[in-house]
């Protein structure tokens, strides 16, 4: 099984009130539950990232409920306004209950 690895791009520095674009990607096969195993003909069970949340200093900025129709290695980008220095926390929830997280800090100068 390929290793699940989150990658996010957040600017390190910003001015207060700046609008930044955050890009996130997590390597994950997003097995849809529709595919069949070529050898056995059996359905490969669904295993996807079903939820993604980004929050800044504990406040939710962007939240996505995800269905199997989102591509493998799910990518999301969205905008955020930076009110102060702080940390953006990202959280991905897997069907199997695993939670993958990543954090990036932004310094307001």
């Amino acid at each position, binding site marked *: 099984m390929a290793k699940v690895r989150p990658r996010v791009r957040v600017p390190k520095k910003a001015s207060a009130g700046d*609008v930044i674009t955050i890009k996130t990607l997590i390597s994950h096969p997003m097995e849809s539950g529709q595919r069949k195993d070529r050898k056995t003909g059996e359905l490969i069970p669904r295993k996807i990232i079903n939820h993604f949340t980004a929050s800044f200093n504990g406040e939710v900025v962007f939240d996505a409920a995800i269905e199997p129709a*989102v*591509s493998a290695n799910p990518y999301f980008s969205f905008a955020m306004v930076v009110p102060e220095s702080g940390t953006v926390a990202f959280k991905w929830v897997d069907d199997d209950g695993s939670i993958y997280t990543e954090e990036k800090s932004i310094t307001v100068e």
Partner: protein
Amino acid sequence: MHFTRRDIGRLGIGAAAMAALGATPAAAMTDETRAAIMDFTGGVEPGAGDIMLNTPEIAENGSTVPVDVTCDGARRIMLVADGNPNPGVATFEFGRLCPSRSAATRIRLAATQDVIAVAEMEDGRFIMVANTVKVTIGGCGG
């Protein structure tokens, strides 16, 4: 009553025409799609409005189709793919720190179909937009 093969063909066309007439003016969509949208809106018929959905006109590979949606004043936006085995794609919810209510992602499309975005506005209204995306799997032209 006796049906020839041609009669049956005509009946089929008539039934298809009836089905088309019965559809909503917004877009012809499958029952599953309609149910997904109604589930999201709580039974409210979404109207037209200021919502922008960017999709490629032709997607060469249906397994990663880039889409982005923008709708100022939206609280939540749902993406639906009308021709997929399950219509739901993703639902985005925006917080206070999201200035422009927009998001971009990549989605799977099983075949040429309509991609629909439905937005719930801050004032409780629902608006929607639909784009057709042509999917050419395996690059067979189209």
